[in-house]
């Protein structure tokens, strides 16, 4: 027994004195610090996406940047300003000519991106940089004014960055997608939470949520290969890839989000509500429609908002299924180009520091602010509403 109590210390001020434990202190600091990183990331995303679009806001800065590029022509390595010659390799932009790439690959010993690029770099930049400077200077004054135009011609002699054209495209696809995804997602959620038996629910919910496991590139591929042809045969329109195909495909991406959040909201409606209604003699569907659904409206609203956010910023599906032509038309069966797809397809063709590059980052900032706003709205609106509901109207 005595061996078990080796410590003779009992309750003295000394033995109970506060101890400083390094491991505790460090653990707490590190854990809180890491948690802080989540907040920092949000800021960093905004700062760095926005930062790259800054040249649009100060013309002097643009000149500076281009000057750096000019100096870099003498020693291109110092400030890795990528030039168009570099692009195909670094960003993996596909070239039409596959054999050309094979040629590059044959000299494997060389660092991949360099090889011949360095040689071409000097040639390329010398010719190109002055041109960029000029277009920048010319385009600078025009850039902002062209934002409100309806023409998106970023790489012409006189570049025009008509964001309106892209906005129309984005809205068109979003509306089409939400027209399908909204009702389908909410109705399916309503069935799962109120009409389905417990067993059926256990099967239906995970199966529908499996749709969230479909990578958007797979949905895009399916839309491009199968849906586009199917709809063309069905409706007989001309452009095979268009807003409608893209919209329907994006609905598939938005459905699991809308479904899951709506279903959670519907299931969270207190049983007392529905029981009271059923006790009053209302049938199951009446209860579902006049009691459960209205009670879950804030949650469903949030679901729709987050669904819109998903569709608005989706890249791969639109890139593959909408045809990507920035036309200004209300016809759902014509090609469109969205904000996100524009970034996805054109970033690889731009040059670091060029107006086009900055414009794409500016579009990125817009998308970020928009999705941030949607999320904030969904969160605070829903929280406010729910608190009101619980505390009594």
């Amino acid at each position, binding site marked *: *027994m005595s*061996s*078990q*109590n*080796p*410590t003779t210390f*009992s*309750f*003295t*001020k000394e*033995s*109970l*004195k*506060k*101890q400083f*434990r390094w491991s505790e202190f460090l653990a707490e600091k590190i854990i809180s610090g890491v948690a802080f990183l989540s907040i920092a990331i949000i800021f960093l995303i905004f700062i760095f996406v926005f930062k790259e679009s800054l040249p649009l806001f100060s013309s002097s800065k643009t000149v500076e940047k281009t000057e750096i590029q000019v100096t870099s022509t003498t020693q291109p390595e110092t400030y890795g300003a990528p030039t168009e010659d570099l692009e195909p390799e670094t960003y993996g932009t596909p070239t039409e000519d596959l054999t050309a790439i094979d040629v590059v690959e044959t000299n494997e010993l060389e660092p991949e991106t360099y090889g011949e690029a360095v040689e071409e770099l000097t040639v390329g930049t010398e010719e190109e940089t002055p041109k960029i400077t000029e277009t920048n200077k010319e385009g600078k004054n025009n850039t902002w004014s062209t934002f409100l135009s309806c023409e998106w011609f970023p790489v012409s002699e006189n570049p025009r960055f008509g964001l309106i054209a892209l906005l129309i495209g984005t809205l068109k696809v979003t509306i089409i997608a939400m027209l399908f995804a909204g009702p389908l997602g909410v109705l399916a959620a309503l069935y799962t939470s109120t009409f389905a038996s417990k067993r059926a629910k256990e099967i239906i919910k995970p199966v529908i949520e499996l749709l969230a496991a479909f990578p958007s590139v797979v949905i895009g591929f399916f839309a491009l290969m199968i849906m586009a042809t199917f709809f063309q045969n069905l409706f007989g329109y001309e452009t095979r890839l268009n807003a409608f195909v893209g919209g329907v495909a994006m609905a598939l991406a938005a459905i699991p989000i809308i479904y899951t959040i709506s279903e959670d909201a519907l299931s969270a409606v207190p049983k007392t509500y529905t029981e009271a209604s059923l006790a009053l003699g209302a049938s199951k569907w009446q209860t579902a429609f006049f009691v459960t659904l209205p009670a879950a409206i804030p949650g469903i609203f949030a679901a729709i908002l987050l669904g819109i956010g998903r569709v608005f910023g989706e890249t791969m599906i639109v890139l593959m299924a909408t045809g990507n032509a920035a036309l200004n038309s209300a016809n759902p069966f014509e090609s469109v180009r969205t904000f996100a797809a524009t970034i996805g397809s054109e970033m690889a063709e731009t040059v670091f520091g060029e107006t086009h590059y900055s414009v794409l980052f500016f579009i990125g900032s817009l998308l970020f602010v928009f999705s941030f706003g949607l999320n904030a709205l969904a969160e605070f609106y829903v929280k406010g509403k729910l608190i009101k509901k619980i505390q009594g109207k």
Partner: protein
Amino acid sequence: MKDIKIEVNKLSLYYGEKLALNEISMQIPRNKVTALIGPSGCGKSTFLRSINRMNDLIPDVKITGEMLVEGVNIYDKNVDVVNIRKKIGMVFQKSNPFPKSIYENIAYGPKINGIKDKKQLDEIVETSLRQAAIWDEVKDRLGDSAMGLSGGQQQRLCIARTLAVSPDIVLMDEPASALDPISTSKIEELVHQLKEQYTIIIVTHNMQQAARTSDYTAFFYLGELIEMDKTKSIFTKPSKKQTEDYITGRFG
């Protein structure tokens, strides 16, 4: 009541704005069993948990007054809460073994205190299990999961686990409330044996249990200590009307 282990001076406890314990003052003797009784919600468990500062874990708890253990106020700013809990062990109402082996459950406390020697650990595990009168039942399956034991065995395992860190004081929060009568009597027997070495404070809602196991009894009602005396006196001639009403079963 010469040999005082714990002295409580006007201890009050608030949950946010709500007063849960109102100026409790009492003296708890060394190497004796003290039972805390009273109707549910009277503050007896809250009081028990304030002896090893488990209430610190609940947000918004405010405590005033003094809790002197061997003359040291454990609510003093310079006192280390972790060291307090090493000397004041606790057995909970619901048995809560770790989902580990029986051996690992007992060795957990010594290990976090820095004992690494396998031989020493083996020894501690055996003595603790023997003290808790469960050694014979589990000695052949120390490597099995503690979750496979019966409710009564689990509770004795938890007692053994508490003893393994060699505390001075053992707090028991209704340790037998979820057990069958046979297990209960085993626990009560155990409490009786343990008081030779430890100061034991036990919360119970079962008055027979208090009468059987304890030397002293304190009656709590609505967050106040109504009276405290030798168990015999409390159960035969309580000085307060409320105590009498409670032990004769008129309320509670």
